[in-house]
Every structure is written in structure tokens, then in C-alpha cells.
């Protein structure tokens, strides 16, 4: 008896298992039918009204806020399922860059000034007319700039990051200082008095914690804030184009202030604990930061005695706006979510529980301020206090990152301390690099 062989010439299956010629086709049909059923049944089984709304945030501390909004929205959409995906800001920026061009982003997304790129590329649809009217009626239009492109509104402002001085009231009292510094010159004088040292003279508690290292653009942003309070700015606009403006007297004074504190008086050193953690541990007397520190202190150092004060002239303000990047049936629910998030009651909850300052006009902060007086420096800024922001131009981040890399080295460079000519040369070289980046993007203004 001949054994069944296949096309390769060897036995492939037992004799008693040989099927009729058309059995393979039939089994394929059965498999296809099963697959179709497997796909179709869950789709029909789920209720038609069930919707899942995904919220993408770059601020993990905002997750409870968004969950709260989602819960409130369930009165209108009972089957609504809210998924809050709040991750670290830099990772959030990466996922936006990868998902927005392919239309795979969340249903509601947060964006800062980088929104300009996506608006320019036409990747964010315009909101309904009711949302535009809502923004126009409830927000100061100077704060809506980052959510606008060619005069049209695309997003709704939610909150903003803005700096103020945090100072340890017990340390100031111990040093005989009865209030916060008023001028930038005061800052260094205060830092000298507030720094605590060991027997060898090395600082153990910094007088004024400065951002001196860590990579990224943060170093340059903090330098910009100090520069601004010395009367300068990093980039200036001329006729819709930009130019580096820090290679001047204010830039020199700002950098000198860093060098005075780090190299000359050693009120702070790069290896000391820094920022909010140092403040909460009592390892620095004062530092400049955004309002979120208040929420952080409440969690990690609730007994810390501290107060806040506005900066002498102004502060860098980073607005965070909400966008709905996808058109379709879910977009209406998404816009309802955005509008719900901006209701006064929810914004006050946001302020009280996360310390992020809402953007909406006309909110009554008095009840929250009674509970958290440190918020006063953020919500009741003095007249004439200026909020400036990173320009919504594509190379802004690169300019800041490259300047930060240079500044990090400069802050500890002893050859720059007390040497105005060397500081000027450093700033000139850095500004030339900034201008070169602007020129590459055809954004360089004429001098």
C-alpha cells in the first residue's frame, strides 16, 4: 500500500486521517466564521451608550482632579468611563509628538507652549463656537495666547505655572530678617545672612537655593526669571521675529549674582540638596519656585514654617491649556469635560488641593486663602507685576536647552567670578548660538 506523501516527498499524516479534497476549504470557512463571531459578539454585547474618555496629562498630581471631573460628568453620561493617564511631563511631551500626527492621542490633552507646533501643522481641530464664546467670556485674552493660532482659539486655559519666592520664616527670624527680600540685591545679602556653615566654613544650609545643575531647559528658565528681575529678558520680539537679548548689562548682572552666591560667597554649592526637597528638609532658607510646592510641602513637611512673596518685577508664566485633538462623536463629551474642569467650584478645588493657579477670571479665592495663606503671592500679585512666557516658537526649547548646558558650566567657573569682560564674552558667545538657531528657523529679527 502506498503511504500518503506530500509535495516534499515524505509522510505527512497517518493514512486513516486523509480528508476529502474540499475539507481544507471548509475548515477555513469555519475558522473565518468563528473569527468574525469572536470579533462581532463583544461589539454587539457592549451597550451602545458606553464611552471611554481618555485624559492625557503631564502632571501626575492632577490625576485626582481629572477623576473628580469624570465623576461629575457621569450625571450627564451615566455610562462614561474616564481613564486618566497622567505621566511625567517630558514623557507626556514625547507621547504627544508621536501620537498627534497619527491621530492616536487621548481625547483630552494638556499642552503648554509646544501647542504652537501642532496648531501650525493643523493637527488640532477648532473647538465648537460655544467653547470659543466660553473662553472669550471667562479668560483674560493675554493668558489665552498660547492656545491661539492666527487669531483663532483652539484650546481652553486651565492653570498656569508661575514663580514666587518661598522662604523659611523661622530661619529669617533667627537671622534677624523681618521680611522677604524686596530687590534682587537683597537676595544675595539675605543669602549671605541665611547660609549656615560648618566649622570649616562650608555651607550646610544654603541661603538661597539656585538651580545649578540637572540638565534640560530648567536651568535657563530659572536664569531667565532672575534676568528679568534685573531688568532684562532672554528673547525679544521685533516685528514677529526674535533675537537673543541677554548679552547685555542685565544678563551680566544676573550671571554675576549666580557667581557671587556659588563661587564668591558660597551661600550655595551644586552638590547641596536643592529645590523643594531641600526646602522641605530645612536645608535651604529660600528658593524661587511655582505654586505646586505648597501642595508638596503640605504632604511632606506639614510643620514647616514658611511664607511666600512675589518676585520684585515679574515671573515666567507657563500656561497649561486643554485641547480636544480628535473630531468625531466623542469630541462633544470631551469638550463637556473641559468645560466642567473649568467650572469655578472645580478650579477652586484644584487650587486648594494641588496649589496650581487657575487661569479663569473672577474667581473668589478668599476661602482658599484663609486655609492656605501662602497662595496669596500667586493669586494676588502686586499691580505692575509682569507675567512673561516662553515665546510660542518652534526653536524655543532648543535655545533654552543649549543655553542651560552653557550656564551649568558657567555657574561654577571661577575664572568668570569678578571678571566682567569674561562674563560678557561668555554671554556674547551664548547669544550668538541662540541667534544662529533662530536664523536657521527663519525667525531671527534684525538688530
Amino acid at each position, binding site marked *: 500500500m502506498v503511504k500518503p506523501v506530500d509535495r516534499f516527498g515524505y509522510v505527512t499524516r497517518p493514512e486513516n486521517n486523509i480528508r476529502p479534497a474540499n475539507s481544507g476549504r471548509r475548515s477555513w470557512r469555519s475558522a473565518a466564521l468563528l473569527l468574525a463571531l469572536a470579533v462581532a459578539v463583544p461589539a454587539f454585547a457592549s451597550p451602545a451608550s458606553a464611552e471611554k474618555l481618555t485624559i492625557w496629562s503631564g502632571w501626575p498630581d492632577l490625576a485626582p482632579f481629572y477623576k473628580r471631573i469624570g465623576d461629575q460628568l457621569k450625571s450627564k453620561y451615566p455610562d462614561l468611563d474616564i481613564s486618566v493617564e497622567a505621566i511625567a511631563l517630558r514623557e507626556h511631551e514625547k507621547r504627544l509628538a508621536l501620537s498627534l500626527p497619527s491621530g492616536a492621542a487621548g481625547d483630552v490633552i494638556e499642552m503648554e507652549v509646544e501647542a504652537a507646533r501642532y496648531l501650525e501643522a493643523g493637527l488640532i481641530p477648532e473647538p465648537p463656537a460655544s467653547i470659543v464664546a466660553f473662553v472669550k467670556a471667562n479668560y483674560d485674552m493675554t493668558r489665552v495666547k498660547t492656545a491661539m493660532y492666527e487669531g483663532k482659539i483652539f484650546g481652553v486655559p486651565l492653570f498656569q505655572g508661575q514663580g514666587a519666592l518661598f522662604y523659611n520664616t523661622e530661619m529669617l527670624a533667627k537671622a534677624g530678617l523681618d521680611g522677604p527680600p524686596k530687590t534682587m540685591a537683597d537676595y544675595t545679602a539675605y543669602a549671605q545672612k541665611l547660609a549656615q556653615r560648618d566649622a570649616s566654613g562650608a555651607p550646610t544650609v544654603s541661603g538661597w537655593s539656585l538651580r545649578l545643575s540637572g540638565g534640560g531647559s530648567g536651568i535657563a528658565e530659572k536664569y531667565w526669571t532672575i534676568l528679568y528681575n534685573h531688568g532684562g529678558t532672554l528673547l525679544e520680539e521685533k516685528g514677529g521675529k526674535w533675537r537673543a537679548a541677554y548679552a547685555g548689562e542685565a544678563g551680566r548682572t544676573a550671571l554675576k549674582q549666580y557667581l557671587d552666591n556659588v563661587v564668591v560667597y558660597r551661600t550655595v554649592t551644586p*552638590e547641596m540638596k536643592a529645590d523643594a526637597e531641600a526646602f522641605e528638609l530645612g536645608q535651604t532658607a529660600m528658593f524661587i519656585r511655582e505654586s505646586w510646592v505648597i501642595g508638596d510641602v503640605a504632604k511632606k513637611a506639614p510643620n514647616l514654617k514658611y511664607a511666600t512673596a512675589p518676585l520684585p518685577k515679574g515671573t515666567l508664566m507657563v500656561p497649561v491649556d486643554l485641547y480636544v485633538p480628535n473630531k468625531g462623536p466623542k469630541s462633544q463629551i470631551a469638550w463637556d469635560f473641559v468645560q466642567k474642569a473649568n467650572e469655578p467650584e472645580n478650579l477652586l478645588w484644584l487650587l486648594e488641593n494641588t496649589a496650581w493657579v487657575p487661569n479663569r477670571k473672577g474667581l473668589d479665592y478668599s476661602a482658599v486663602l484663609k486655609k492656605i495663606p501662602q497662595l496669596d503671592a500667586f493669586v494676588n500679585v502686586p499691580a505692575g507685576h509682569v507675567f512673561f512666557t516662553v515665546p510660542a516658537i518652534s526653536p524655543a526649547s532648543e535655545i533654552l536647552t543649549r543655553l542651560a548646558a552653557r550656564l551649568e558650566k558657567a555657574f561654577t567657573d571661577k575664572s568668570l567670578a569678578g571678571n566682567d569682560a569674561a562674563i560678557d564674552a561668555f554671554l556674547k558667545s551664548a547669544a550668538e548660538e541662540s541667534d544662529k538657531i533662530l536664523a536657521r528657523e527663519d525667525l531671527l529679527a534684525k538688530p
Partner: protein
Amino acid sequence: MRTTPKWLFPVLALLPILGLYGCIRVYPIIETLRLSLFQWNIISRRKPFVGFANFIELASDPLFLEAIFNTTIIAFSVVAITIPVALALAALINSRQGLRRSGVYEASVFLPHVVSLVPAAMAWKWIFDARLGPLNALIGFFGIPAQSWLFDPVLSLVCLIVLCSWQAIGYAVLIFLVGLKNVPDALYEAARLDGASSLQAFRYIAVPLLKPVMLYVSVITLISSYNIYAQAFVLASDVQGAPGHLVRVLVLDMLENSFRNYRVGYAAAEAVVLLVIVLVLTGAQFRLFRDRSRA
């Protein structure tokens, strides 16, 4: 009767795997090579061809040059540390084979390789901490003043080299051990009869026979060291509390250019440079080991 060629089945069987390999390995490389010749911001539909402009700009970019310098120093240092240390450790462990706890030695040496990268880097960050770290406490016993390990530009490079070597040695030891176990005992016995000491037997028998293994270990270590990123990032992260000097390495620079500066073509050009460096160095390693083994 017409028969189907015998090669058809293996080819068909391999096709899905080859297809997958092509999609997830070959295509990205080709696409990276192509992108390096374009200016693209990841978002825009506009993607103008710029020829070699990205490469020309790289040649005078101080951050890229710093990154390439740092990465090269780290990669060569890690190889220079890993190969002799791993070989010595493998020889020691091999000499204890069959004795009690020999498995413990192997496991303890291999452990750093399997520890997740980020927690390991966090632990080393604590060890290197200028004020609270045990390393400064240790050197203090010998009268050496405390060092700013993570802030000094040179010392922070040293920290990265130590961290990467610590992780690479475990894997290298394992590979060397396999190589050592394959050296025939008869060769050692012959050497002993000829009056060779253990060290001489190792030097003149084991080491020459291990050259192919050394080639493999050095190539793998060099390639992985050129690709370091997370270690540099973690040692300088935690900006809220204790940041450190960010050692700029190539992959970190690429990520920054891609997703912070939105310069994907420029970052692709960096990736091409990295590819060329690794290919050239791997070729050089092959040549070096082959020539010596012939001699």
C-alpha cells in the same frame, strides 16, 4: 512530474520571521539613514531634503561633540575594565568549580547584570552622594577629602564608567566561564607535565583559546556602552532634590533633539554617526583579534 524545489519549504517557513525582522530591524535602519538627509520636525508634512547639511552641522555642534567624546571615553573605559576583570573573575570561579559555594560565586557576579537598570543607578547615585554617600565616608578613612562625584565633570564620567562596568562584568564573566569550561583538560595536563605553573597555563593556553570569546565580549560591551542612556539620565535626574551634572551621551543627545527640539532629521544623522562608529570599531576588533590569532 513537476516537483517543487526543496528550498521552498524552508524559505516559506522562514518568511514570517524574515518579514518581522525586516519590519522591526532592517526598515528602521534604512528609514533612519534616509531621514538623516532630511529636515523634519516629526509633525509637519513638509520634509525638505537637505543632503548632508545635518552632518555638516553636527561637525561643529559643541553638544554633539561633547556627547561623542563622553560616550567614547565611557565605552572604551568600560571595555578596558570589563575584559581583564571579567577574565580574572572567570578564571578564579573556574578554578573553584566543583567546590562548595562555587554556584554562589557565579550568581553573585552575574547578579548586577540582571538587576533592573534604573533601581541600580539610583542605588549608585546614593553611593556617590557627596554628603551622605558611603563612598565619601570610605575614602574619608584614608584621609582623602570628600569628592563631588556627581557634579565634577570628570568625576561624573568616572561614576558612569564604574556603574556601566559593574553591570557589564557579570555577563562577561558568564561568557568567559563557558569558554574556560570548553578548554580541554588535556592541554592543562600537558602544560603541567612540561613544568608550567597555573598562571602560565592560563596565560599561554586559556587566554589564546579564549580569543573568539574575548572578541564577542568586547564587541557586545562596546556596542552596549555606546548606547548608554538610562544610567546617565538617572544619575543626573531627580531635579526636585538632588540633581547632578548631566553627562551628555549620544543617545541622550539624540532623544533631546528628537522629542525636545523636534529635529528628527538631525537626530537621525547622529544615529547614523553612532552606527558608523560602532561598525568601524567592531570591524577593527575583528581585525585585531584575527590578526593576533594568526600571528
